[in-house]
């Protein structure tokens, strides 16, 4: 498959490229990613991602099921930020059917989606630190995420795959005392975040392992269609929440953190700051949440006609859904835009010329979820 190049560096010594098959069963490929890696010693010459180990025919299944039956499937694309994927699908359907969503449902979606961002980034923070060999940060992040999942469980009944959003609203209202629970959580979370910075961010080894590693320039990021924290770390201020506001993002003011160098460190910092912004947004949402219904009026017989495109800013980047209807109660075609799939194309750019350790850091820094790559 790959030719082995024999090169002579000095007389008498012959050195060869080493072809290493990294994954799909490898501790730091975040699921079942396989990277075909060519090495010169420890230096990475070429890293090609091989995907498809988790392919579930999501898009085809979506054509065969009734519209509402597809919602649980969307959970399983990006299983670490399931609300975001539900949201984009539900938004697409609502757009096409012109369903009004009550104010309270909007707020619940808004709060849940920002909490989800925190949960997802927390998990990423832990696994990224672990990829660099710092195992303790992983378990600390897990602790905070656990409490968030408890909140999700109390609201939706599930910890990861919620099946919570509905066309026209959300399945059920939040529990009594939701506001105070979340408020308490955020207070603790912000304190913990300082601990994280102390444990990881200021660490010399951490800085040396991430600064200047896996650099993506702004041009490359745009050319490959990167989005989310990966794009912003390269210095491009683009966030769907700002550039094409949905839910309530146009009502509240929030910062979009941007990096400069597009290296792993910037991607790290962008995500860490995003968590703070998300916490702020959640607070705004909690303060203004009105009372009322959580489900709008939805026609009993759904006829999907025409096509639409909905996009949101998920924890990983721009998730979008292109939905075509032919007048039946099923989607004629559903196309899913997955940011992870796009970011994985950048792997070769990031890894080339670095060491194996950098390759691992790069994979970690783009926050890959194989369920979303393969769908």
């Amino acid at each position, binding site marked *: 498959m790959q030719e082995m190049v024999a090169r002579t560096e000095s007389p008498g010594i012959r050195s060869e490229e*080493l072809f*290493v098959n990294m994954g799909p069963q*490898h*501790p*730091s490929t975040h699921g079942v990613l396989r990277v075909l890696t060519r*090495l010169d*010693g*420890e230096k990475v010459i070429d890293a090609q991602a091989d995907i498809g180990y988790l392919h579930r025919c999501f898009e085809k299944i979506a054509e065969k099921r009734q519209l509402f039956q597809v919602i649980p499937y969307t959970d399983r694309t990006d299983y670490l930020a399931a609300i975001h994927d539900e949201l984009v699908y539900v938004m697409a359907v609502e757009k096409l059917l012109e369903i009004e969503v009550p104010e309270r449902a909007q707020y619940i979606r808004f709060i849940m989606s920002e909490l989800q961002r925190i949960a997802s980034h927390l998990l990423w923070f832990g696994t990224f*630190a*672990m*990829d*660099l*060999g*710092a*195992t*303790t940060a*992983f*378990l*600390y992040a897990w*602790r905070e995420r656990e409490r968030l999942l408890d909140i999700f469980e109390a609201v939706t009944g599930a910890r990861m795959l919620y099946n919570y959003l509905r066309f026209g609203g959300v399945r059920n209202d939040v529990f009594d005392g939701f506001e105070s629970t979340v408020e308490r959580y955020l207070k603790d979370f912000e304190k913990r975040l300082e601990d994280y910075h102390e*444990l*990881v961010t200021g*660490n010399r*080894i*951490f800085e*040396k*392992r991430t600064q200047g590693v896996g650099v993506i320039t702004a041009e490359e990021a745009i050319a490959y269609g990167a989005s989310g924290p990966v794009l912003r770390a390269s210095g491009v201020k683009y966030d769907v929440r700002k550039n094409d506001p949905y839910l309530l993002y146009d009502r509240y003011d929030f910062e979009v953190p941007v990096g400069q160098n597009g290296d792993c460190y910037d991607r790290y910092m962008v995500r860490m700051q995003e968590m703070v912004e998300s916490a702020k947004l959640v607070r705004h949402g909690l303060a203004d949440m009105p009372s009322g219904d959580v489900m709008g009026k939805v026609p009993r017989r759904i006829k999907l006609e025409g096509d639409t495109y909905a996009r949101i800013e998920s924890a990983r980047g721009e998730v979008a859904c292109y939905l075509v209807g032919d007048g039946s109660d099923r989607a004629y075609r559903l196309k899913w835009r997955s940011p992870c799939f796009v970011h994985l194309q950048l792997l070769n750019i990031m890894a080339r010329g670095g*060491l*194996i*350790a*950098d390759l*691992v850091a790069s994979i970690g820094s783009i926050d890959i979820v194989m369920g979303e790559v393969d769908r």
Partner: protein
Amino acid sequence: MDMFTAMHNGLVQMGVPLWLANLVPPLVKSLILLLFILLNCMFLIWMERKVAGHMQRRMGPMRTGPHGIIQSLADVIKLISKEDIIPSGVDRWVFVLAPIVAFAPAFAVFMVIPFGPTLIAQDLNIALIFIAALTSFVVISFLMAGWSSNNKWSLLGAMRSTAQLISYEVPLVISVVAVALLAGSLSLQEIVEAQRQSFWYILVQPLGFLVFLTASLAELNRSPFDLSEAEQELVAGYNTEYSGMRWALLYLTEYANLITFAAIASTLFFGGWSGPVLPPVVWFLIKVYFFIFLVMWIRWTLPRIRVDQLMELGWKGLLPLSLVNLAFTGVYVLIR
């Protein structure tokens, strides 16, 4: 030691041939040492898991015995009863030999370590050289394990550890030489004695100790220098293909080396077995376990350094520092 001389004499009087009688005391000594190492390693493995657990807000092993104290025993039984697998592609003899080559020197080093004023298997007058020679042996076993496994990850791990151990051997030995200069002896017993008469050498060798500690972490393949078995990068490094008892032996070597390091660190810089009130052995064990805890603490806190940064630190950082330290120590010894 008196007990062993008595044992030897008794055997000769009982009519046991001299060559056999000569053989008995060393055999008994090594058996005691082996037992000490094995028991300590088992305890250390449990301790490592407990330390890690509590640092990470977990409990660690809890099910086997009170607070999981016999977890290691259960692990040993599991490992012994496992199928003995030699993968078909490996270089059989080298593969089988590697764990033994790894463990033997790690074990032999304990011969010269003073546990107390008289509690030492053999008080060599070149103990420091002996230790330096034996501890560098481990490179060969890593290379053997990595190469014979016929696995690319193992090979990469072996290459890494070879480069790492060779480059950290130099500052390590130089920092130790400074202590030998101070004490005027290479014998560990005499170094302890010299510290008893003056002060702990950490007071005049803070830099030397720092170099020693850092280089030792690299020698031990401990985080942040655990590159050769970097799980996230190399799956398991040189011992990827090992399982069952052979793997256990490699694992054991690691912990035996950890004890060696802690023992040497406390002997060279912290007065070894000397200390007030408590018996010497207790003092020695307290110091040893302090250093072991320190190493575990570091391991569960820091991320892993990268292989090129490791080389840089070794050659550009530690080596000059250790040389400077040696020079200053030389001047100090001259004007003392």
